[in-house]
């Protein structure tokens, strides 16, 4: 994909995430990978007014970036995740309210709905988080993402990832619903967890079969 086209698509997705409250003008960030380059939203710039020149380009292996860039505080976290998970093509640091509250509660979110098990994984762990991001936090987040598509950042929302920005968007949507359900079932006497063996099975079936149906079932 040409860089100009990638930037235009990236800005369009940034607006979608912003319109759906996954990121705000001042908090949260999105990035995608094009080869060895990472495109990321700048610090405290509303996606509504983002221009192609505002999008920051970072060399993933070396860490160098476009001159005069003002990267977000979690930039090194995005880079660390791309370096560890080669199949990841897009990352979203979401600050959506249900996800944010779950991250503030600091409890592992268990799947009360099967789509969370399928699309995010059998649990959504909580990783350490604060700014500035240091090596310990990066290691905790990378570990929390093992065999998962999202990890809660203690007190700071969640990091969601996918092969592209569309897949990461699905992860954000399902995590939001899963967190909302986890919170509100407390008022109904508590949610009933799905059997852990079944959650692993659901995840496996989704990754091997169902996630490919949109292309294969024609």
């Amino acid at each position, binding site marked *: 994909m040409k860089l100009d086209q990638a930037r235009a698509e990236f800005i369009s997705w940034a607006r979608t995430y912003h319109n759906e409250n996954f990121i705000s003008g001042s908090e949260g960030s999105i990035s995608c990978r094009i080869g060895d380059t990472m495109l990321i939203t700048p610090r405290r710039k509303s996606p509504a007014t983002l221009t192609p020149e505002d999008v920051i380009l970072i060399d993933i292996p070396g860490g160098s970036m476009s001159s005069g860039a003002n990267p977000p505080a979690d930039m090194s976290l995005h880079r660390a995740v791309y370096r560890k998970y080669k199949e990841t093509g897009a990352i979203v640091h979401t600050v959506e*309210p*249900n996800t944010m*509250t779950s991250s*503030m*509660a*600091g*409890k592992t979110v268990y*799947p*009360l*709905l*099967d*789509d969370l098990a399928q699309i995010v994984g059998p649990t959504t762990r909580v990783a350490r988080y604060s700014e500035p991001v240091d090596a310990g936090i990066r290691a905790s987040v990378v570990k929390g993402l093992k065999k998962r598509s999202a990890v809660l950042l203690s007190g700071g929302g969640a990091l969601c990832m996918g092969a592209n920005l569309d897949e990461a968007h*699905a992860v954000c*949507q399902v995590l939001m*619903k899963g967190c*909302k*359900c986890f*919170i*509100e*079932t*407390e*008022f*109904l*006497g*508590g*949610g*009933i967890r*799905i059997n852990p063996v*079944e959650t692993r099975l*659901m995840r496996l079936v989704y990754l091997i079969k*169902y*996630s*490919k*149906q*949109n292309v*294969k*079932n*024609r």
Partner: protein
Amino acid sequence: MTLDKARETVHRACAELVKAGLVARTWGNISAKVDDSTFVITPSGRRYEELTAADMVLVKISDLSYGGSVKPSSEKGLHAEIYRQYPEVNAIIHTHQMNASTVAAARKDITGMDPRHSAILGSIVRTAEYGLPGTGKLARATAFALKGSKAAMMANHGAVCAGRDMKEAFIVAGTLEDAARSFIEKAFIRMSGSGIKVTEKAMHDYYLKLVAER
């Protein structure tokens, strides 16, 4: 209903369902009965916005067989079971709607509804016994839970809404979402004590207080 009309009805319903916020992406499925032995249903795993009416799959109620290379939704058995047990039903929407799914995750039945909800849904909306998605167990349990109502919830999964036609199935789905929201809010008020205005923020603050006290 002719096959073409049924396909067109389901196709139109796909766009409406996403617009109404009752499903996102392909999470859910829709069907319309063609005659006493067949129905058409959305294909498995395809994004609704990319579908055409011709993509809707014709399925036999008796044995779930279908023609062509496009696979029907993996929940076809659930739809067939409802058409078998409730001859008056001509349209079914299986949603993953937010509030009904939350009640389904707590495996509660919705009772004590406002008259505007019970007039459409009946006096109770049950949550069916848990079953893995796509299984006969889940299909039978959900059809059983539909007795006396136009809607049922599916434990840890979502909801199913039935109607004499697609228009009614949509009204049922929308009403169920309102009723489920109201059920959750009443439970929150009971638990947190009167005087707290029900907002998302109030719910989240109270939840964090509960977690901190444990």
